[in-house]
C-alpha cells in the first residue's frame, strides 16, 4: 500500500473511486485525500463517518453479473485478487493491500439496465478472495 502515498510529503492518499458517470456508466477515477492531521510520524486524514463494516470471502471461480453497489463503500482486498470490469471493456485487478471506493450506484429513478449500468466482479488467481467492506 506504500505506493499509494506520495513519498515527498507523505501527505496524500490516492483513493480509487468506482463511480457512476453522468451517462449512467461506471468508470474509475482517482482522488487525492490529504493526510493533514496527526503528526509527521503519523499523518492522518480527516475522520470520516462510516456505517459499519463487513468481511466477505468468495471462492475461486466466483464471478458476478453486472450490478450496481447497494451502498457507497470502501472495498479493501485482504487476500486473493478481485477484478472489476466495466461496460467499456476495461477492467482492473486489485491485489491484497489495494482498494477501491465503490460509488457505482443506480441513478435515482432509473431501472437497472445491464447493458448500461453497473460493473461486474470476479475472483482472480489461485487464492479465495477475502475483502473488507466499510460503508461510508
Amino acid at each position, binding site marked *: 500500500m506504500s505506493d499509494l502515498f506520495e513519498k515527498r510529503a507523505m501527505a496524500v492518499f490516492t483513493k480509487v473511486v468506482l463511480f457512476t458517470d453522468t451517462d449512467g456508466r461506471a468508470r474509475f477515477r482517482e482522488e487525492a485525500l490529504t493526510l493533514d492531521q496527526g503528526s509527521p510520524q503519523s499523518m492522518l486524514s480527516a475522520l470520516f463517518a462510516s456505517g459499519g463494516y463487513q468481511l466477505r470471502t468468495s471462492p475461486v471461480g466466483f464471478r458476478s453479473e453486472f450490478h450496481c453497489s447497494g451502498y457507497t463503500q470502501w472495498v479493501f482486498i485482504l487476500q486473493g485478487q478481485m477484478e472489476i470490469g466495466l461496460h467499456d471493456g476495461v477492467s482492473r*485487478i486489485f491485489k491484497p493491500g489495494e482498494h477501491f471506493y465503490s460509488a457505482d450506484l443506480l441513478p435515482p429513478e432509473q431501472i437497472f439496465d445491464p447493458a448500461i449500468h453497473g460493473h461486474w466482479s470476479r475472483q482472480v488467481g489461485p487464492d479465495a478472495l477475502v475483502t473488507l467492506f466499510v460503508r461510508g
Partner: protein
Amino acid sequence: MKTHIDHLVVFARTLELGVQWCEATMGITPGPGGEHALYGTHNRLFKIATPAYPMAYLEIIAINPDAVRAVQAPQRRWFDMDDAALQAAVADAPRLVSFVVNTSDIQAARSALTAQGIDRGPVLQASRRTRRGLLQWQITVRADGQRLFDGALPTLIQWGKTDDAEPMRLHPRNSLPRSGVTLQGIAVTHPTAGKLQAAYEAIGLTGIAVESGPANICATLHTPKGVVKLDSCGL
C-alpha cells in the same frame, strides 16, 4: 518465417478522447504518432514492450477529421473503422478492436492464410515521415476494411522496404520511451477457435491462448494504475 506481436489497436472516436481515455485508464499520456494519408486516420503511440513481447506498442487510432482523402483512396478504412456498429460502440469509450503482428515475410504469411481459406487482403505499401526518417512498411488490408474473426485474426505487417537490410531500424518501438505500461499477455476466445488457432499456427504466431467462447480479445497490461485488462467484447 518469424511472427511477433507488433501492436494493439485501440479505436477512439477522436484522438483527443483517446488520449483522455488513456490517461484515465492507464495513468499515462501516449506519445506522438502520425497521420495515414491513404486512410484519413491518425494515431498516438506508446511502448508496452517486455522481453516476451519485445516489439510491442499500443496504437490509439482515430479518423482524422482534417484529412483530405485522395480520389484513389480506398472506400473503406482499415480495422473496420467505417463500420457503423463499431463506430457506435466507440462513441462511448475507446475500445481494443484488433492487433497487428509483424512478420519477416508478409507474402509468405499472407499465402499461408490463403491456404487456410482466409483472405487477409492484398499487401499495401505504406509510409509516413518521422523525425528519424521515412518510416515504411507493408501491411495487409482488405478492400472492405474488415478485420476478420471479430478482430482476433491479426493484420500482417512487415516493416521497412522489401530489400531493407535493417527493416526494424525505424520501428516505432525504437523511438518510443518507456511508458510505464507493459504487455503481460493476450488471450483470445472465439466461437471458431479451432480455425483461428490453425490460422495463428499457419503464420507462426505463438504465445496467444485461444479458447472457444464468445468473441473477445483480452490484453493484460501492467500500468501505473495497477493491472488493467482491455477486452474487445466481440466488437
